[in-house]
């Protein structure tokens, strides 16, 4: 016996989509309002000595001392790499590369060396971060980071 479908194909089944569309628009508005475009952020590790066990390792590279001086308005006025004047951050990076040994590749860990920053009190923080960037590493041609020195340290703050 042929079973007859009770659905009349001429009459299409309809349902009210209005509440669903309302909800979806509410969701869109919520997500749009909470959307914030922020720049990607990254961290630099700082090793502040409390117990100095690094001195016990005779193979460790000697600590480099980088002095950053500031003009009265907080701008950078001078850089010194172990008492040697340096013109800019690119030259500072080159000196650090010479110190850790050239030919480093992106897959290598950092050199194990240590840099101590001695900054003027009023020096704007952006210059300190720029100097830390110069000694920490370099972005290679393929966009990979070549690590140089990741042990960063600060000398005691100078009086204002």
């Amino acid at each position, binding site marked *: 016996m042929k079973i007859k479908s009770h659905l009349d194909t001429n009459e299409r089944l309809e349902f009210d*989509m209005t509440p669903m*569309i309302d909800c*979806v*628009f509410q*969701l*869109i508005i919520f*997500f*749009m309002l*909470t*959307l*914030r475009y*922020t*720049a*990607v*952020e*990254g*961290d*630099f*590790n*700082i090793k*502040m000595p*409390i117990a100095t066990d690094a001195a016990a390792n005779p193979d460790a590279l000697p600590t480099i001392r980088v002095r*950053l001086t500031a003009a009265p308005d*907080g701008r950078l006025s001078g850089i010194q790499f172990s008492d040697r004047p340096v013109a800019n*951050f690119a030259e500072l990076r080159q000196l650090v590369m010479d110190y850790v040994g050239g030919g480093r590749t992106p897959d290598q860990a950092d050199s194990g060396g240590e840099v101590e920053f001695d*900054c*003027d*009190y*009023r*020096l*704007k*923080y*952006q*210059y*300190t*971060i*720029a100097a*830390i*960037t*110069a000694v*920490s*590493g370099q*972005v290679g041609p393929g966009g990979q*980071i070549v690590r140089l020195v990741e042990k960063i340290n*600060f000398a*005691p*703050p*100078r009086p*204002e």
Partner: protein
Amino acid sequence: MAHKIDTSHKLKFDMTPMIDCTFQLVIFFMLTLNYSMEEQDERIKLPSSELAKPVEAMAETNIMLQLTKEGTVLVGGDEVPVPGLRSVLDRERQALVSRKGGNVRDATIVIRGDAAVPTGTVQEVIQMAQKAQFEKFVLRAREPLAQEAPQ
């Protein structure tokens, strides 16, 4: 002459493409929503660094200290002047120690300093945290924008 409208014939339109687009939008906005950004204060203009790459994992024991150029520190929803930070850090240390398995040595102090803050202030904050027995510190920077020249 009266114009007659045939009311029995309802006008229909296909809503499928519109719903498709709408769901695509919902998915896009959901995926771009980042809850970890909630604790970042917009007043802080971070210094840029070409080495700033996304932080892979945020430890639970991170303490975020945000230094404004006005000389205050934003910590845990409070705004305190730099000299008043010590008591806040002591309180945080107590909270960590009282937590089961909590250790001050595992906690990391994340410093989000404004680019115009004097470096001496950042150093003072680090010193204060050291006195409160914190040992791990990270300085946060942002990726340079496309129009910024590399350093």
